């Protein structure tokens, strides 16, 4: 029996686990609530929706946040969980390469997150069509970047899962890395005019900036009156952001496979 067939089997059963757990439905519910909150609160708290469909599209883009949350919750226990929960004693005594196993778990996690992202973008598209009668083509770029970003975050999560003793540790460290450490460093480097394309948080931010850069995005906040706060700030180009995501996706996964291959289930 070939490894590709085993890969299909692992992916199928790992995805079944994601479906059986409540996490997928909880995150879908969170996505729905977040978008609903934006759509309801905006006209209530200001003079209706933004004039520009691009501004509204940028404001509704919670895909990166959902991609991060989904990736971390579906992938945090992928490797660490097998060691921590001792399910590895059953799974690893089957004749399957670890590479096949981890790839199957990766694909299953990615499919779950991709469904979540597509669901979110479907809500945005329907909302924009109802409010403005149009859906900007930039949404396709945004969706493509978001799906690539999800792959990158899953790889980062896999890396931390491969080095962590437990699933909770892997989840927390990944959250801290993606949202806190990377975010702070991005701010400092961006505002001091230094390169920051390699930071995963910056790559995530670029997903909303496809609608016209930070000027369009911040127009939605207090009518764009943000003073000199964003002077000198340069957003990442789509190309740079995509390359950065590919780097995390490949490096994170390769490192996680290498490290977990050396881990022993004692």
């Amino acid at each position, binding site marked *: 029996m070939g490894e590709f067939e085993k890969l299909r089997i692992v992916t199928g059963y790992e995805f079944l686990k994601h479906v059986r757990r409540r996490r997928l439905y909880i995150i879908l519910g969170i996505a729905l609530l977040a978008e609903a909150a934006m759509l309801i609160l905006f006209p209530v708290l200001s003079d209706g929706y933004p004039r520009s469909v691009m501004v509204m599209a940028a404001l509704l883009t919670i895909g990166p946040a959902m991609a991060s949350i989904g990736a971390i919750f579906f992938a945090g226990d992928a490797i660490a969980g097998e060691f921590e929960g001792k399910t590895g*004693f059953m799974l690893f005594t089957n004749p399957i390469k670890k590479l096949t196993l981890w790839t199957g778990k990766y694909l299953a996690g990615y499919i779950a997150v991709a469904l979540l992202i597509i669901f979110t973008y479907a809500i945005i598209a329907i909302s924009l069509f109802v409010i403005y009668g149009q859906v900007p083509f930039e949404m396709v770029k945004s969706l493509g970047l978001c799906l690539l970003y999800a792959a990158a975050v899953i790889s980062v999560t896999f890396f931390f899962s491969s080095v962590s003793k437990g699933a909770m540790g892997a989840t927390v460290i990944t959250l801290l890395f993606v949202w806190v450490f990377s975010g702070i460093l991005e701010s400092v480097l961006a505002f001091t005019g230094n390169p920051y394309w390699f930071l995963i948080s910056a790559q995530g931010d670029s997903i909303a900036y496809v609608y016209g850069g930070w000027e369009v995005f911040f127009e939605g906040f207090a009518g764009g009156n943000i003073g000199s706060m964003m002077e000198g700030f340069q957003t990442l180009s789509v190309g740079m952001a995509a390359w950065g995501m590919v780097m995390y996706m490949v490096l994170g996964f390769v490192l996680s496979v290498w490290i977990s291959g050396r881990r022993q289930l004692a």
Partner: protein
Amino acid sequence: MSEVIIIENLSKYYSKYLALDNLSLRVPENENVGLLGPNGAGKSTTLKILCGLIRPSSGKAYVDGINVAEKPEQALSRIGAIIETPEFYPFLTPEETLSYFGRLRGMRGDGLKHRIKEVILLVRLEDWGNIKIEKFSRGMKQRLALAQALLHDPPVLILDEPALGLDPRGVVEFREIIEGVGREKTIFFASHQLVEVTQICNQVAIISHGKLLAYDSITQLEKKYQSLEHAYMELTGGSIG
């Protein structure tokens, strides 16, 4: 008669702690061999190395002529194993779990479905086949572990305290199952229960501090030491009043 399990000069360090010290032993085909020893003797370490779960610091292990370290997937295809207290994915049912592992071993379609029902019946879990494992007791998980070890009808069974957690009836049923399948398989199993080992095995290896102290038939050990219990106690440094 060929030797299905070959352990050659196996040593294992956990940091500075020496868990196995140049252990060598060979298990002939279709023999049932018990691995006895006190806590920390190296029994589980030996079985985990045979299953490719940990790497030896030195030495080699072979299953059916296959070097476990060099070709782990090939070696594992010949083995059915229960290692430590078994844990399963709580969101799956026994049928789904066995289907997963069976398919990974190349089993398919009606043949797999039939075999799943067979082993579930064998371990007396027929009323629980479609219940999620999160509702299972430890003993029930132990039974399921035995089912997954037997599912693909492997020539070699490697069992680490397989009756742990079972109620007295379960222990008897387990022994009967192993005695039944043991006639056509090679069984290498670690246990603290001398009675269990006496009833299932015809040969015993006694280890302590990672070293092999004795490896002989139970009959011979009983001749030398009056009983298996005496042999165990004397060889491992205990005493019987």
